[in-house]
Structure formats: structure tokens, C-alpha cells
């Protein structure tokens, strides 16, 4: 009787890549819901659009590369890229911005490097950076404003669709983000004065804090489910806070730490974007360094750079350093006195 011969282990956990991707996608739902509730339907429309484009782009390239379509689409990695881009882009950005960003992310950011697992950069952030550099106006002026600001209406589903696809009526629902506002106005006002602006709504960040809290909840869920580890988010948030407290302690001169942590893409970046496993550092200590690097870069670019937010650039820059960080942060293996450092070539040994 011929028996099956296979190598050990024969038992396998029930985890799968699709499951990982799906869990991450689901963890963004609280953030998406809060965003929709407070800023209107723009983001939801964006997410749907980005997901459709991402899946189509993925399918197209897989077809060209002659890879099995079903097998790869089923891993939901393109879906997740689409979701993350849709969440990151300005809610009322014109449709073609979303299409360009998503298509670029999938085709150039991922598939041209060899597809799933082989991309050195976070594809979503690559797409984001492309449109941010190429279309700065559309990327900075199409941020929806919060429903908590009484003088402006909230974009309904129809409004959002009309605005996104025809470009008309955007002004009615949009404005600068709190980060942008604070950065530009603090040079000739005080913190107390700024707090009274409708953008900040007297408390913190006019709705942005709720969005960030929602992403924080989703992120904690991922940590709990062991999809991600705590290292990158904690290091990134800690580095950002530390920089903000040490370098920007005076709220009359710099954006305060509360705004850094709870506005913009901070929590989305910390838990969903910087933790993209493919392009991040993978060793436990490497993740700490990587996360801290992202946090520092975010602070530096937000404070002294030309762009109001900086998660995309921070992540992309640290992506470059990830392989190097990994090589120098190997853990100490059982039975070894100390950890190995770096890679020496065969000749050097």
C-alpha cells in the first residue's frame, strides 16, 4: 500500500494569509464608521472606489504575469491596500486622484516588484506619496470638515459622490485640517486663541480625535488578535510624543502633543500602515527602532517640512532602512552568549 509521504510538521494552525488580511480590514471598520459619521460619506466612497480599482489592477497584472487569478485575489492583500488608501486620501479628493494612487500602488508598488511579499515599500503609501507630490492642491484642500462645526453642512452620500466625480461643490464641505491650521496660524496667535477656532471646536481637534480613537481601538484589537505586535505602534507613538514634548513643549509656538497624537493619520499610521509586515522591520528590536524612526520622521516633517502630515513619508523612508535594521537586530538565539550583528560576507569571515 503506497502511503503519502510528507515532511513534518503534519499539523497546521488554522491561520491563513487571507484571514490576516481580512482581520486587518475589519479592524479599520470602527475608524471608517466614525469618519463617515463625523465627516460625511466622502471616505466611504473613496474606500469603495479604491478597493474596486485595486482589485481590478491586481487582476490585470496577474493576468499579464500569467498567475492564477483566484488564488492571489483571494489573499485579500489588494483589498486591504485599497481600503487603507481610501481611508488615507482626503475624503473629497477627485476620483482620478484615488484611481491614480491605487493603480500606482498595486501595479508599481507591489506587482512590479514580484507581487505579494516582495515589495520593499508599503504600496498604499507609495500611491499616496505619488499623488501628494503630483497633485498637492487636490491633496490638501479636499479634506472634509467635521459635522461638529456648526456653520458647514455634512456631505451626504449623494453630495459626496457628486463632489468626488464632478468636482463641483467641494468648497461647501471642505477645509484645511487641524494640523495644517495650527501649524500656519500659531506663528501669529496663541494656543488659547486657536482653541476657539471652529476647526478645533474648543476642545481638541474638531472630530479628528474620535477618528483616531476609533483607529486606536481597531489597532488594539489587532494586537489582541496577535495579527500585529505592540512594538511598532508603541515605538512610533512614544517617539512622536517624546519629540513633541521635548522639542515642542510650548503650545504657543508648536503643535501640542495632543494634536500630534490624535489628529491626522497618526493612529491609522501607527497601527495599520507602519505595521505592514512586508515592508517593515521584522525582528522584535528592529520593530522598535523602525517604529521610533517613523515617529521621529513624522514629527520632523510635520513641524519643519512643507507637508501638513507626514505618515506616508515617514513610513517610506523607514522602509528603506528596514533590511539594514533587521540585519543588525537579530535576537540572541538559545545557547548563544550574545546576538549576532549584521551580515558579513563570506570573504570577510
Amino acid at each position, binding site marked *: 500500500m503506497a502511503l503519502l509521504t510528507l*515532511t513534518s510538521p*503534519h499539523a*497546521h*494552525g488554522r491561520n491563513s*494569509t487571507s484571514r490576516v488580511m481580512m482581520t486587518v480590514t475589519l479592524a479599520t471598520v470602527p475608524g471608517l464608521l466614525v469618519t463617515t459619521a463625523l465627516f460625511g460619506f466622502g471616505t466611504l466612497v473613496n474606500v469603495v472606489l479604491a478597493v474596486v480599482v485595486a482589485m481590478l489592477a491586481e487582476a490585470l497584472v496577474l493576468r499579464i504575469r500569467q498567475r492564477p487569478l483566484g488564488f492571489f485575489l483571494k*489573499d485579500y492583500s489588494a483589498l486591504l491596500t485599497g481600503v487603507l488608501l481610501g481611508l488615507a486620501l482626503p475624503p473629497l479628493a477627485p476620483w482620478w486622484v484615488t484611481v491614480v494612487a491605487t493603480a500606482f500602488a498595486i501595479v508599481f508598488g507591489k506587482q512590479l516588484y514580484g507581487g505579494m511579499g516582495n515589495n520593499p515599500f508599503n504600496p498604499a503609501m507609495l500611491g499616496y506619496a505619488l499623488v501628494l507630490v503630483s497633485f498637492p492642491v487636490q491633496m490638501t484642500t479636499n479634506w472634509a470638515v467635521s459635522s461638529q462645526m456648526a456653520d458647514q453642512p455634512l456631505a451626504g452620500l449623494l453630495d459626496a459622490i457628486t463632489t468626488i466625480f464632478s468636482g463641483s461643490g467641494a468648497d461647501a464641505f471642505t477645509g484645511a485640517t487641524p494640523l495644517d491650521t495650527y501649524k500656519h496660524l500659531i506663528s501669529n496667535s496663541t494656543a488659547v486663541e486657536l482653541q476657539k477656532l471652529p476647526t478645533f471646536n474648543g476642545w481638541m481637534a474638531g472630530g479628528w480625535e474620535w477618528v483616531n480613537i476609533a483607529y486606536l481601538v481597531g489597532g488594539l484589537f489587532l494586537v489582541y488578535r496577535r495579527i500585529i505586535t505592540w512594538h511598532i505602534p508603541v515605538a512610533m507613538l512614544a517617539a512622536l510624543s517624546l519629540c513633541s514634548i521635548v522639542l515642542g513643549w510650548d503650545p504657543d509656538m508648536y503643535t501640542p502633543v495632543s494634536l500630534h497624537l490624535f489628529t491626522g493619520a497618526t493612529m491609522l499610521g501607527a497601527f495599520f500602515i507602519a505595521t505592514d509586515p512586508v515592508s517593515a522591520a521584522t525582528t522584535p528590536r528592529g520593530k522598535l527602532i523602525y517604529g521610533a524612526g517613523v515617529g521621529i520622521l513624522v514629527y520632523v516633517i510635520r513641524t519643519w517640512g512643507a507637508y501638513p502630515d507626514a505618515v506616508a513619508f515617514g513610513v517610506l523612508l523607514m522602509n528603506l532602512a528596514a533590511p539594514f535594521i*533587521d540585519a543588525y537586530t537579530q535576537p540572541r538565539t538559545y*545557547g548563544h552568549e550574545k546576538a549576532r550583528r549584521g551580515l558579513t560576507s563570506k570573504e570577510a569571515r
Partner: protein
Amino acid sequence: MTHMIQLHTFHGGIHPAENKSQSNGTPIRTAPLASELVLPFQQHIGAPAAPCVEVGARVLKGQVIANPQGFVSLPVHAPTSGIVVAIENRAIPHVSGLEEPCIVLRPDGQDEWIAHQSLCAELGVDDITDIEPAQLVHQIRMAGIAGMGGAGFPSAVKLSVKRDEQGQSPIDTLILNGAECEPYITSDDMLMRERAAEVVRGAQILLYILGAKRCLIGVEDNKPEAIAALNAALVQLHEEHHIDVVKIPTKYPSGGEKQLIRILTGLEVPSGGIPAQIGIVCQNVASAAAVHRAVDIGEPLISRITTVTGDAIKHPGNWEVALGTPASHLLQLAGYQPQKQPRVIMGGPMMGFTLPSVDMPLVKTSNCLLAPTAKELPLNDMAMACIRCGMCTEACPVELLPQQLYWFSRSEEFDKAEQHNLFDCIECGACSYVCPSQIPLVQYYRHAKGSIREERAAQKKAEQARERFERRQARQEREAAEKEAKRKARAEAAANSQSAKPAPAAAPTVAASASAPAAAATSETLEKLQKQLTATQTAIAKTKEKLAEAQAALAAGDESQATKITALESGLEKSQTKMKDLAKDIAAEKKALKAAPPAAASTAEGTDKGDPNSPERLKRKWETAQGRLDAAQSRLAEAREQGLDTVAALEEGVRKQQERVDEAKAAWQQAESGAAAPVSTAVAVTESATDKGDPNSPERLKRKWETAQGRLDAAQSRLTEAREQGLDTVAALEEGVRKQQERVNEAKAAWEQASGAQPAATDTPAATVAALAPAVAPAAAEADIAALRSKVLAAQDRVNKAQERLDMAREQNLPTVDALASGVAKQQEKLDQLQQQLAAVTSTAGTH
């Protein structure tokens, strides 16, 4: 006595479904004997055993049927009485379906034991503490006990610890591994439940053998019955003991030796090291029970408990089964129902291997047969891309970066994989288990390890070949240098005698007949003068050449040459004066030597030229033969060391040479004892006159010195060789060389003294004869000697060349080997003849 044991933890680990309840609900059953038992020679890590029974023999239960070969090896015993029906290659339990030599036994159903008793009874002592630990270790080894947890390392090897001078053992802790962390397997669980006393008794014996302070039995907390049973057995001991049952958290792979050590002690086994280095010895609980049976009953390891489980098994449970039982027999007992895609795993689902066929026998390490359904252990889906999620890193119990190792293994960047501590991987499968992309990670690591090992083996082989080549080259160079040195020495001697000849022409006043004695006496001054003369003559010739050139240049119009010519001319003049002076000195020297009367000529002729059987000749022959024998032996030793295939030929050569040496020695001894009587009077006279009569004559002393020097040289070359090969005889040889050097110095001093006193003695006629005896070196023979020497050298060259060609042919296994060998023999024969002739001639000329 229970102590609080501080538990530690290891990194990572996983919690797969335990699946133990299927098989641990029923007591251990004894499996009926199969119709045929297949016993591989090797059921352990190490060298396979060698069979010591013949086909057709009846063997008894417990009888040794194969003996261990070497330290890391174990015997094989007959699991029941029966007939050996075959000793042949059978498929052994290995994933490859490899066939290895096995003994096939047909049980006769009588199950008749060989006589056996406890070691205490055998030795007539009351308690094992009266037995030397080494004796117990021997008993365990001869009982064939190998680690029964899976690896199968011979237990005796682990137990052979070296104590220091105070009798202190380096082992502090004995760990019994009852963790059984693999899902499904319950054989150790059931053993601990039902035979806890045996395990505890085994622990006591092991503690005594090791001289360890304590024993920790680590059991996962999912086996409360086993823990209770062990504790009950400890209570039953009624005596002071240092054995603790330690409940450890259930986590795979806590039963890995390194992980269990870490859990129980917080210590880590150094990478590439063994637990004994940190004072720990680890044994499986089943091995401990087997130790008890081996020592207290005298039973070897001939059966074990095996779990049969999985959803394709109707009646899962544990069976006590005779080693060598085919898996199919046990599967049938348990009600195996083959699936659509049948799969039988030997071992657990994490580290076990699939059997290629159910005919394979169960061996000492077979703790489980797992026959799962496809639903139960789904076949791996197609692997997806690695997303570097790092879940493997989280799970790895030895803190590797499995994901990095995977990329390096996949791209065959093996050096990087090695740098990421690939060889610390214990292949537990935790990384593969958690991998969301279903990548068979362990398979990649196995592949990488295998490739690296192959690479290393190839490198080692190449290195050895290179070393062998270099040694051979060094030997050839050394031989060539020695030959060259000998040739030079001979040429110089010949030149000296030759240069003495033309002297008469330069100084015609000196009689030709006198020149020979003068040359033979080789006054040192004369030799020096002659050398200077030759040098000056060469200088003159060169200067003359230069002068001629310069003059030609001058003639061609080169004015600048004028001064040069003047300088050359003055130099030439000086040289010529010098030459004349030298010639005068030489003449004077020779005149002084000429004083010797030519009377001795006739005496000398009578020495031993005419008698090839003189003891001297025979002794020399013997010595030469001995020298050749030594050389042959050293060549043989070298060949053996390097495992060359010329060993047999060399051995034959050594044997023949030994015969020759014996013959020569015998001949010499005979001649020596009977020498005095039969020799001619002339010889007798000469000998008595030359050296026999006077043991302190310079000639005798010089010969003594030379012999001593020869021995010193031989000793030194042997020493050099020993040093090169790092033999442990170096020290002894050094001492020998030192002593021989002393002897040489003494002999030299004696000779120098004697020869220094020589001129004073010239007056006495006897001494004169003695001094002049060598002078008779017949001028006629000289030409012969020179001719013979060159012939010998040529012959030697031919022999060497032929030998080299032969070696090459042998190395490449060419069909011309035989022809070349006979060619070498012929050449050697010719050489021997020539050497004999030469020896005959030179001894005539120079024995004195």
C-alpha cells in the same frame, strides 16, 4: 521530599490541539507477537551493530544477536525466542524508505528467556551502591538502551561522566523528560501512570551513576494522572531522596531537551554543546524505566510502549510491543482503516515522519503510530507568499528569525542562513505551524542544512586531498634533496681525489705514486689550498675573458675601456701571483706528506677486497637492508594514515625487506662469530694492524662517530616526521635524539683526539702502517668508482621515475599498473646490483 522549583520559560512555543484523550483512556495492552520480527542493526544514533548469529540459528529471548561496534553503538537483542531466518537488507523506518541490514527473526512462540538476573545478584552484592558506576553504565550499554523519546542516542554515552580527582561528578542535575509535548502521543503518559515505580527506581539508579545532587522529572500539566502516580511512587520510597516531580505548563515544544532544561533550571545548553557542559544530563522517562529493568532484572531493551492513534484507527491506545514488530501488525491490532489518501506517521504530528510503507518495523525510538484522516490533519494547501508577518519569529522556541532563514534558504544564500544560526534550529515545526502562508518552512531548513553539510564534506575532502598532495610533494622534495646532497658529497670526494691527480703535473717533483697517499690522507690544509687554487684559477680565467672583451672594445674605438683594461691587468697579475704562491704552498704540503713510505701497498691489497663475506661487508649489507626496511615502513605508515590503496603493495614490500634484513643479519652474525679463523693472514695482519688490534685507532673512532652520526640523522628524520604528523611519540623521539647527539659528540671528540695525536705516532712502524693503510686506495679503482656511481645514480633516477609513474597509474586505477610494477621491480634489481658493485668497490677503497 518535594521542593519548590522555580520555573522558567522559553521563548515562543505554540499550543496545538493536544488530541491525547483518544489514546490515554485505555490501559497499556501487550501486543501479541507478529509472525516475523525485523531488527535493524542500527536503532540508535551511532555506529550500527554487527550481527553475531547465523541464519538458521535458534536464539533465546534477550540474547544478543548483534554486537556494538565502537563507543557510540549498541547491541541488538532478540525480542523473543525463535529462528534467525535471514540477515538481509530491509526497509527501515525512515522517511526515505532506505534499506539497511536487518536480522529477521521468526518467533517460535515459546518466548523462552535467556538466563538473566539482576546485576546485584550477578555480582553478589546487596545494593547497587556497592557497584562501580562504570559497571552499571556497561550494563545499561549492553542492555541496548537508547533514548526512547525520539532521537535514540545511546544512554550509556550520556552516562559516562568523568569525575575529578576528588570523585566529584560534574553533573549536578538529572532531568527525566516526561513532558511529552507532541500532540497525540501518550506512551510516556501511560508509562508514568502505570509504571511510575519503575521510572522512579530508574531515576535512583541514574542518580547514583551520575553522582548528581538531584533529579527533576518534568511533566506537562496536561498529565495530572501521571504526576499523581509519580508522586505516589516517591512517597513509597520511604527513604531520603532528591527526586522531584515538576509540573510544567503545557506548551509545545517543552519536551525538547533544550527547552525542558531551560524551563526547569533557567540554564541554556551552549550552542553546539551538550547538557553535560552545564552539569545536566537529560533522559526520557521510558529510558529510565528501561534502566531499572536492565539493572534490577537484567532484561535488555526488547520492547517498548507505542501509541497507535488518529481518526483512521478504530481502537486507539497504547501497546507494549516487541521491537522489530512491523507497523502493519500493530495497525491491524488497533483497527486501522486506510483512507483515500493513506498516511501513517511514525512519531507525532509535529516532528514525526510519514512511513513510506506499513511493513517497516518498530524500533527503540518508535513512540507513536499516527494514522490521521484528511479532515483531522488537513494536507497543506498550496503555500502562499511570505508576507514577513513575523509570526514564526514569535513562535520560534530558540529565538531564530525563521522568516529570514526561509528567504536565505530559498535563495540558497547558505552563508547568510548559517549566520542567522540555522544550525540552532531544532526542526520543531512551530514556525510552519503558525505560518499563515502555509509555507513548509522546516523543509527549507532541512534542505539548507543538508546542502551546507554536503558542501562542508566536499570541502573537507578537497582539503584532505590537498594535504596529501602536499605531503607527497614534500616527501619527494626531501628525497630529491637528500639524493642531491649525497651526490654532491660523492662528487666532492671524487673531485678531491681527481684534483690530487693533476697535482703531479703542477709539481712534477712529487712522485705520482706518492700523490695517492697524499690525497687519501686529505690533510685539511692541503684541501683548503687546493680549493683556493681552483677558485683563483677560475678568477683568472674570468678576468682574462673580460680583458679580451675590453681590448676588443678598445680596438673598436671605445676609449673609456682603457682604464678598465689597466685595472683588469693589475687584477690578473695579482691573481696569478696568488696562484703561484698557492701552488708553492701545495707543493710544500705535499712534500711533507710524501715522507710516508710506500710500503703499505701490498698490505692494503690484502684487506677485504677479495672477500665479499667479511664481517664488515656483511654488517654494512645488513645495515643498508635495515635502512631500506625503515624507509619502507615509514612509507607504509604514511600510506595507512592517508588510506591510500598502495598499502597492500607496501606491506608486501616491507615483508620482503624484513626477510632480507633477517638474512643479512644472520649472515653477519655468523661471519662475525667465525671471522677470526678462516681469513687470510694478510687480512688478519691488516686488520690487527689497522683497527682490530687497536679499538682506539682514529679509523675505528671515526667509523664509530660516523655510525653514531648516521643513527642521529635517522632519529632526527623520524622526529621531524613525527612532528609533522603530530604523533604523540614526539617527546620520546626528542629524548632519543638528544641522547644520540651526546653519543655523536663523544665519538667525535674521541676521534678528534685520536687523530690529533696521530702525527706524534708516525714514528712507530705499526702506527705508520695504520696511517698508511688507507693510502692504498687504488688509483685504478677510482675511475671505476666514479663510473659506477654515475651508473647507480642513473639507475636510481630510473627507479624513481618508474615508481612515480606506477604511483600515478595506481592513483588513477590505470590498467598499466601491473606492467609498471614489474618494470619498477626490474629497475630496482638493476639498481641493487649496481649498488652492490659500488659497495664492493668503495669498501675496498675506503673501508680503512
